[in-house]
């Protein structure tokens, strides 16, 4: 059976949602006597905001250590989703009595509600 779980650089994360942002660079110039002129300068590579849970202090620290400008693999649904650089990571330590996200880990491990801002390569 294919592993459906999500991993960022082989660190297990439990995804609750992903948003993707991308934009064109369209400078708008305003001549004196007519409508706006739009020029196309290119487009940005997508930015993924990944909302997820991370279980365990060591996994949380391992993710934070990925803020080094290197692109790491994000995989999920049994396939590679792309290579991403970790730009920022927001971590909220949740109040949990017993975690059940990861049965391979002690149920007393800490649970972190996390948002990863990932730059797609």
């Amino acid at each position: 059976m294919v592993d459906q779980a999500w991993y960022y650089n082989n660190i297990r994360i439990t995804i609750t949602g992903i948003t993707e942002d991308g934009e064109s660079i369209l400078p708008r110039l305003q001549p004196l006597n007519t409508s706006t002129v739009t020029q196309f300068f290119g487009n940005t590579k997508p930015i993924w905001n990944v909302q997820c849970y991370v279980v365990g202090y060591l996994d949380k620290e391992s993710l934070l250590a990925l803020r080094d400008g290197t692109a790491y693999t994000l995989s999920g649904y049994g396939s590679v989703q792309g290579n991403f650089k970790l730009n920022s990571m927001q971590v909220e330590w949740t109040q949990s009595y017993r975690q059940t996200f990861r049965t391979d880990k002690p149920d007393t491990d800490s649970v972190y509600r996390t948002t990863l801002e990932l730059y797609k390569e």
Partner: protein
Amino acid sequence: MKLDAVVNDVTNIESITVSDAHNSPTSTAALKVGSTTLIVGDPITVELGYDGVTTKVFEGFVKQIDKTVPDNTLLITAQNIMIKAVEFFIASSTPDNPFTRFNISAEDLVEDLLDLADITNYVSDTSNFTFAIFNPMEINLISSFDICKTIADILAYSVWADRDGVAHFEDRRPNPMGGDSSIATIDSNTVYNIIGNTYRKSDRDLRNRIVVYGAPGITAVAEAESPHLPTGYRKTVVVASQWIDSQSMAQDAADFNLDKLNRLTEEVAVEVIGDPVYDARKVLTIDEDFTGVDGDWYIFSVEHKWSSAGYLTSMELRR
């Protein structure tokens, strides 16, 4: 419109600025790029345009490369071929035998001086102005460009290099002249590309009394009333050169410069949607309804600015 730029041996171009001016020895290009295989001294050409159609706006040599962190971008600074004359300092290997010319036309003299700096692609007007008729002209310890500029100033000429790398020594005044043809029309009724402009009329550069000091005993004066100054009001400029060694040459120099300088300067600073056709020392036509500056204008300076903020061309126009 999709912005396009073509530059040899660079990738990931972030911005390009190319500037040139009537009174500037060289044109300059500044490029911010992600990476390059260019090194200092390499030839570089810059083309700008839209939708895959680009036009050369600069040809020159890389003079400096700056690497900036943390964004890891490279800033390349380049100047056109005239920089070779600016930096070629004429210093004879044998001080007793300096560069010497005798009875030589101004255009041939400038050609020889630029040739010293290895600038051989050269065109000129026929000046009918001869130096060193009676005494040999010895040139030493001055840059090739400086002496060419001095000669140009005596004749009210200009010396420059164009975007194709050709050096010019011509009767090119900083205003539209007879025989000029317009390279483009900025027409607010059909081509809506003016972003903004300002207009100024000034006697700042007006001179109506020219005094020429030549070789010992050679002087000449040319003066005239200006319709823009009170009667008898004189603004004087001096042209001094030991190489003017005939009275007729001195008088010609005075007359040429009076004709060039005894005029009111009208200036328009205009910014338009970027177009590589605009080039310094060319003439364009304006037909617009905002400030009423219709007519032919000389492009005194031009700056092409190409970046994620768009492609804009700023110009200072004069007549």
